[in-house]
């Protein structure tokens, strides 16, 4: 078990280094830089700006500089939002994206699991057909359409939610529903498949033979095994959902991190983009690690080495 932890930790360090290297080199390869702006500067001033962002140095020196600074935990000053350090941007945005994400996950898991279980238990019925059709639609429709429809319906036609913003419970509900819907649909489908698979296993037949009620069999014996694929799906999904969604954050004007992921690259905010990539890597890696751990808990046949 200890060896498992150590190996994973070393793996994380190595992964971070690879991600850092590849991302930074890609960033340095694209045209323009943080010094680019609508109004061009006289060459001497432009050179001065390049010097400020070290864009005048050969790539390996820039690489070493960024690596050394990031290793100390200081991710630098955002080149675009010049009043903030990258650490500050993350400290402000991550909790917001995360709380929106957790809320959305909550919806997704409750909705998805219930739908999946019902579908599996009443396989082939009208309920199964309806739920799975809805799930397919949920996966297929992009979130900006869902958000647009939700705003039209719940902000303008039946005005029960505010149009956008952050800070009150009412402002939280609509965006997290829109964000969670696609995940709910995915979870429903995976749960259904997992349940159907588990219900046909020998140990479930044994449980039935013992005279347990069908509900007991489903929830106590089939569900933990059926959860395995759901948990594998949730690991990376959680990392994604916690760091925010560009679309939802833009449409609902939510001050989370998601928007920065795209914007930092577009405006060549090297420091912020690198900081976010590293953050995402750590989160993704950690979530996958937790997924592996939970396998051991959910399925006694899995042993961690």
């Amino acid at each position, binding site marked *: 078990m200890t060896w498992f932890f150590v190996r994973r930790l070393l793996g994380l360090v190595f992964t971070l280094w690879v991600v850092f290297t590849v991302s930074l080199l890609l960033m340095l390869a694209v045209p323009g830089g943080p010094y680019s702006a609508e109004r061009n500067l006289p060459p001497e001033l432009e050179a001065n700006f390049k010097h400020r962002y070290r864009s005048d140095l050969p790539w390996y020196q820039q690489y070493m500089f960024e690596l050394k600074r990031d290793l100390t935990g200081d991710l630098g000053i955002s080149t675009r939002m010049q009043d903030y350090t990258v650490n500050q941007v993350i400290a402000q945005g991550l909790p917001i994206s995360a709380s929106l994400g957790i809320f959305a996950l909550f919806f997704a898991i409750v909705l998805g699991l219930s739908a999946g279980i019902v579908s599996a238990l009443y396989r082939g019925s009208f309920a199964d057909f309806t739920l799975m059709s809805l799930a397919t639609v949920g996966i297929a429709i992009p979130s900006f359409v869902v958000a647009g429809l939700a705003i039209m319906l719940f902000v303008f036609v039946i005005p029960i939610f505010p*149009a*956008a913003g*952050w*800070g009150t*419970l009412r402002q939280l509900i609509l965006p997290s529903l829109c964000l969670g819907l696609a995940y709910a649909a995915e979870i429903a489908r995976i749960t259904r498949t997992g349940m159907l698979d588990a219900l046909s296993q020998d140990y479930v037949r044994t449980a039935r033979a013992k005279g347990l009620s069908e509900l007991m069999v489903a929830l106590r014996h089939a569900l933990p095994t059926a959860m395995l694929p759901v948990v594998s799906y949730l690991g990376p999904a959680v990392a994604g959902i916690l760091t925010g969604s560009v679309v939802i954050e833009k449409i609902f004007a939510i001050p989370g991190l998601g928007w920065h992921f795209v914007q930092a690259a577009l405006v060549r905010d090297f420091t912020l983009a690198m900081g976010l990539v590293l953050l995402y890597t750590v989160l993704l890696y950690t979530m996958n690690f937790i997924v592996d751990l939970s396998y051991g808990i959910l399925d006694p046949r899995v042993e961690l080495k």
Partner: protein
Amino acid sequence: MFGRTSFLVAMFIAGLAAVAWAVYGSHLEPADFSFTNETEVQTVDPAMATGQPEMRIIQSLFEGLGRQSPTDTRFKAGAAEKWEISDDGRVYTFHLRKNAKWSNDEPVTAHDFAYSLRRLLDPQTYSRYAYEGWYLVNGKKYTLSSQLEPGDPVEVELNLAPGVPSTRRGEVLLGKLVRKTPVETKSSESAKTDDEPPKYIFDVELDGKMRRFKAADATDSVPDGVERCRQVLLDFREVGVKVIDDYTLELRLTNPTPYFLDLLAYYPMSPVNKTCVEKYGSPAWTQPQNIVTNGPFRMVARRIRDRVRLVRSDTYWDRENVKLNIVDALSVEDRTTAFNLYSTGMVDWQTVPPSEVLRELLKEKPPRNDLNPAPQLCTYYFLLNTTRPPLNDKRVRQALSMAIDRDEITRVATGAGEIPAYSLIPPSVPGYHKQECKPFDPEAARKLLAEAGFPEGQGFPRIEILYNTDQAHQAIAELVRKQWQNNLGITASLRNEEWTSYQNSIQQLDFTVARRSWVGDYQDPNTFSDMFVTGGENNNTGFASPEYDKLIVDAAKEPDRAKRMELLEKSERLLMDEQPIIPVYFYVSKNMVRPWVRGFYNTLQDTHPVQDIWIDHSVKKDDPHPNEYMEPMK
């Protein structure tokens, strides 16, 4: 069952925590006035900022010698209560009001302005607006040390001790420049630095002793006998900024500049508080808990991509005339979201509604009482790369221009009442007669193209129209492609690039035809004309005409206003004949402002100082003539 139960409990706790966190901090008092301020402001440092969202905040926080009038954006008394201009228009003397205070209770003095102007010009500040200070005598030479000549008095700024905020200055030694020698830059490996200006070693005479300096960090290597320093600049006493006494400031200009006062009212010229800037360093000094300001509002809270909260300053000298107590500037990137917020009553002013919505709103009957598009000092045009055949032929450039039907573009693609443009300089610049290029005339265009050797467009290479990724630009480019195809028989293709790459392509002249727009910084033709001088940073067409350059220089030196305008008119005449650019349309402003908002006027520069805005509760929602905004522009 450990896994399932604990999982459910964990989820439940996480859910609760998420709600608690989300709702935490919502105890903000509601604002008296809130508006959507487009994108997150890059910075509130006046010297560093560029752009409208930044301006709306900065002019609420800081006040320059003058400030922008809400009715026409011209200079209005600010920190200075009186001023005199010498007869030759080159010396400005400002008398500061004695009751102006910083938010830390320090008085606002002439020293603050001298400090802030020096800071604006200092290359270590990295201001994009440093050139606003270049109207001052020797201002440009102070920023660009490559222009230093032997014999110039100089200041050598030594490197800062480690750990000292970079906003402070190192020890400054005053001396005389004896010689400057370019040094080889060893960064030849990076290909980007081809056109990099040389770095210098400066030989400076200090107290009768000769010393050699090179701008270098402690880690950089320097040749033997050369000392490291932060920078070598012109002695600031040579620059046209003079503190006569605590409340009197004299500014000397190189040329009589009729729009200089208006520049002083523009936000980059705002003063900053030295105590605050030097104490906290950058970027910490701009944080709400640290920042010291002298304007009508204080910044009390700021959350990234959420809002900047402004509260009326109780140290501002004219606080009695600031009517709003709490103002929220919301960062809302998406125009549709901003419109949703406006139409559900959550904001009082939306700067730009989405164009597809705008079109519908303008059709409403009776006309809306909160929307009144007005001409703006901004031109949309195409750059033509005059270094690329066949666009190096003037006849081809003219033909391309004459084959564009601007009326169709403003009718079909833009739709907010934009004005078809045949000149670079927008109409309604006071005292100026715009000079137009030839009108839409497909017949004549075909003839010109035939003369240039491409009858019916035969043999004309496929040309590419570059634009930055945006639906509106794409729609216009599509129309132009269609018009060129129909009217000239030539084929064009479209190329879109995201903003930074597009900028880069324009700068490298890596395009044939490219869209561009330019907003005037001040209400004078020069803000447009001086772009197209030979080698100008924003020329971006390869256009080079000694005659044009001379007209621009002569106009700058000309003290007589009428003659100066004539020279500028001649320059535009030349530009429109040579046609390195094709004007397409003039922008209109598109604010949506609630009927009870008063003190908000349509202006040429689309600026609306928040400090003059107030709420009139007596105005009814459907009053057809509710406020100043709905009146025709003066």
